[in-house]
């Protein structure tokens, strides 16, 4: 039991931390990377919740698909920081 609790606390910390990073990072690129971290740690939670299949789907669909798409978009819409920064 206590291991589970420790694992939960650890990964919850990672999840929340990464999530906060996503919304607080100044660079969208960093945000995207931290989102990947958050999604992966959520996958770990899924495993702990006896949803191994969904954990696999999470990694495949989110980290493999969604995140790649977002990365593409970040690159496509990336403009010169010097010009755009306010």
């Amino acid at each position, binding site marked *: 039991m206590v291991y589970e609790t420790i694992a939960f606390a650890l990964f919850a910390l990672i999840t929340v931390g990464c999530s906060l990073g996503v919304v607080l990072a*100044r660079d969208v690129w960093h945000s995207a990377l931290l989102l990947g971290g958050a999604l992966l740690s959520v996958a770990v939670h899924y495993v702990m919740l006896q949803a*191994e299949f969904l954990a696999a789907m999470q990694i495949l669909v989110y980290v493999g698909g969604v995140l790649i798409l977002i990365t593409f978009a970040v*690159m496509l*819409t990336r403009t010169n*920081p010097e010009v755009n*920064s306010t």
Partner: protein
Amino acid sequence: MTDGPDAGSNLLPGLAAVGLFLVMVLAFAGASFPAPQGFGGDANVTASIGYAMFDIGNLGDVGAEGFLAAFLIVAIVLDVAIDGAVFLAKREEGGSVVTALTDGGRDLLDRSREGPNAPRSERGRDAPRREGGDE
């Protein structure tokens, strides 16, 4: 691209989110649940899905047939999504869908290099010309 959660007024709405979090935590703290039932021992959901998928008897530990419907609908939804994405990516100004997908965003990059200060209408006018000239 680098606009962080910067100054004053922009942060203020965030307090609403914090407030929502506080309300939720308050509510959850008062809630109580019985012990989780679980799926019984070391039941394997993934395996059950596999068995259900090939309709192999009652080997699965949990009834996973619902997933099959989910798969079908997911397939349709994703198909629609890709169609929509292609439709949105299509250029209005005469370019074909293929160029939008194959030029690797070069066109967009070109424009961004010109800088955002150039008037939009001018850009809109010469965009097709440039596209036709380069490729």
